């Protein structure tokens, strides 16, 4: 998903869920910041680089695709953007163990990991809630793709058709992909940019939904295609419906986080709460536009009575940089970093427990005498034990 949903829509959802405007802004900021918190940024502010929740395009180009490099990439993308749907899924018929482990990383909605993600944010403040909402939203947009570079999982081909509305009838158009990252997507002509085909299994071009371009992130898109892992099975993706589910589930999740005795459960979507604005929200999702920030902004004003300021990546940077080492974790960025580390550790641990080394060794394994993320120990375990 893009800034329009992660920032503006999350703000609306938080306000509807009963959070104050101030907290809702923080939740929304943190939800969007998951797409900005790179190693480069953390290095610049003197934060722990292992808390990175995304990678810049340049970082990905330079990324090492050796075993350790791939584990690093998978840890980031699977933890925050492509939360695995079922780590114990049966493979599609006979398959190798290597394929099965990648197959199990395929992102899907309403998973056990999603419950763990939301529960991990309980009683941790708006920063952790923001990260959880980003992960939740992305499970709907990025379904059927995996957060690890894999040709056999993430590849798509010429069989890609967009379902468009022309007047009062639906027509199907074959999607044309081009590889020039500078050209803009043309939704009117079903022409989109995607990553180039690379025959190597572990190429960065085969990470996530790169081969499908930005289509999963456009709320208006309805399309059918054949994923590589599907054995010639066809998948229909209805983004307006999925995004509506994501929005309603976010409201339910945020409400449950506000309730001290609450417990997040999958399969619940708070449709009642959006009833006064349902038609407006539906129209925002349906309009064929690459970014819906303005519409969400207007809706935010309508719901909360005040306008959400434009996203500023450096909003809390000064607070973090100027704080002394012991009080950094009590700043907004500090709490975000701690929550990000906890989320990464939790997902890595679950992936490892399922028998897969695709995300490497988790923090818990330290107690069995193996090396782990040093920053994680320093920031989470040692400081936690001091407290």
């Amino acid at each position, binding site marked *: 998903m893009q800034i329009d949903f992660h920032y503006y829509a999350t703000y609306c959802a938080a306000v509807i869920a009963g959070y104050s405007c101030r907290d809702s802004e923080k939740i929304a900021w943190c939800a969007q910041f998951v797409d900005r918190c790179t190693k480069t940024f953390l290095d610049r502010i003197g934060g722990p680089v292992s808390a990175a929740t995304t990678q810049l395009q340049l970082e990905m180009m330079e990324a090492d695709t050796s075993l350790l490099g791939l584990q690093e990439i998978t840890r980031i993308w699977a933890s925050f953007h492509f939360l695995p749907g079922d780590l114990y899924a049966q493979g599609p018929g006979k398959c190798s163990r290597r394929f099965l482990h990648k197959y199990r990383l395929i992102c899907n909605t309403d998973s056990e990991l999603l419950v763990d993600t939301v529960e991990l944010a309980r009683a941790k403040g708006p920063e952790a809630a923001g990260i959880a909402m980003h992960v939740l939203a992305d499970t709907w947009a990025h379904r059927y793709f995996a957060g690890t570079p894999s040709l056999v999982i993430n590849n798509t081909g010429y*069989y890609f058709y967009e379902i468009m509305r022309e007047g009062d009838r639906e027509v199907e158009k074959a999607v044309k992909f081009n590889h020039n990252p500078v050209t803009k997507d043309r939704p009117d002509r079903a022409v989109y940019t995607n990553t180039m085909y690379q025959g190597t299994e572990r190429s960065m071009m085969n990470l996530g939904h790169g081969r499908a371009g930005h289509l999963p992130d456009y709320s208006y898109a309805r399309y*059918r295609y*054949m994923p590589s892992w599907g054995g*010639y*099975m*066809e*998948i*229909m993706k209805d983004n307006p419906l999925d995004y509506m589910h994501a929005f309603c589930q976010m409201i339910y999740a945020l409400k449950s986080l506000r309730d001290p005795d609450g417990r997040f459960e999958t399969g619940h979507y708070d449709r009642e709460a959006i009833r006064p604005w349902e038609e407006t929200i539906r129209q925002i999702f349906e309009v064929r536009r690459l970014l819906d920030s303005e519409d969400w902004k207007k809706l935010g004003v309508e719901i909360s009575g005040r306008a959400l300021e434009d996203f500023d990546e450096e909003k809390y940077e000064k607070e973090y940089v100027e704080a002394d080492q012991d009080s950094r974790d009590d700043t907004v960025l500090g709490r975000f970093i701690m929550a990000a580390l906890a989320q990464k550790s939790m997902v890595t641990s679950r992936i490892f427990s399922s028998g897969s080394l695709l995300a490497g060794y988790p923090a818990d394994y330290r107690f069995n005498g193996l090396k782990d993320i040093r920053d994680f120990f320093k920031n989470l375990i040692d400081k936690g034990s001091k407290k």
Partner: protein
Amino acid sequence: MVDNTREQIRYRKSCSTLVRVGYGTIMIGWWRAARYIGLILLKKSLVLQQIRGNDVLSYPGISDTRIILILLALVTALMSFVALMHLFIGLSAIREGMGKKTIGLYIPLTLLMIIISFARALNKLSVFLSSLDLNDDVLLNLNVDIINNSLVTPTFASVIIELTFMIMLTEQFFAAVRIRWYRRQMKKNQTESQSG
């Protein structure tokens, strides 16, 4: 809106096969053309030796360069035709696989190419095997001087390529037939459901 019945999955698999093999057919066409043109350009001395040694083909009044140029022109023309035929068959297969309208002529042409390819593969294999002096030296040192010094003796690689091409064309043929059958069945089912 999605149809994931067994028939539909098989149909899509056949379409995908046809597209992939179609690209392969085009590439084999270009390879063949490049191979024969390259053979003349890189083995000029051997070519001239063969021509000069032949009573019918050798013309004492014509220079070596002219002979090579004439031969190159003839081979280029012939290979262009071969490559174009491969292109036609390949493109038709790709179009058929992608669900676009195409002329069905490529199917019998594919069958013809299978027969030619089979004959070529058999011929190449037998000539290759008979040209090998299977003594210990060859087996231990992979001595292929005999093959390199001959124009007509095929290399092991070209035998493999010919066999591969034959298998590809067979796949293409059966995939094309299957796709047309499925489409006929789907149309029939559609008509029956509309009238019913």
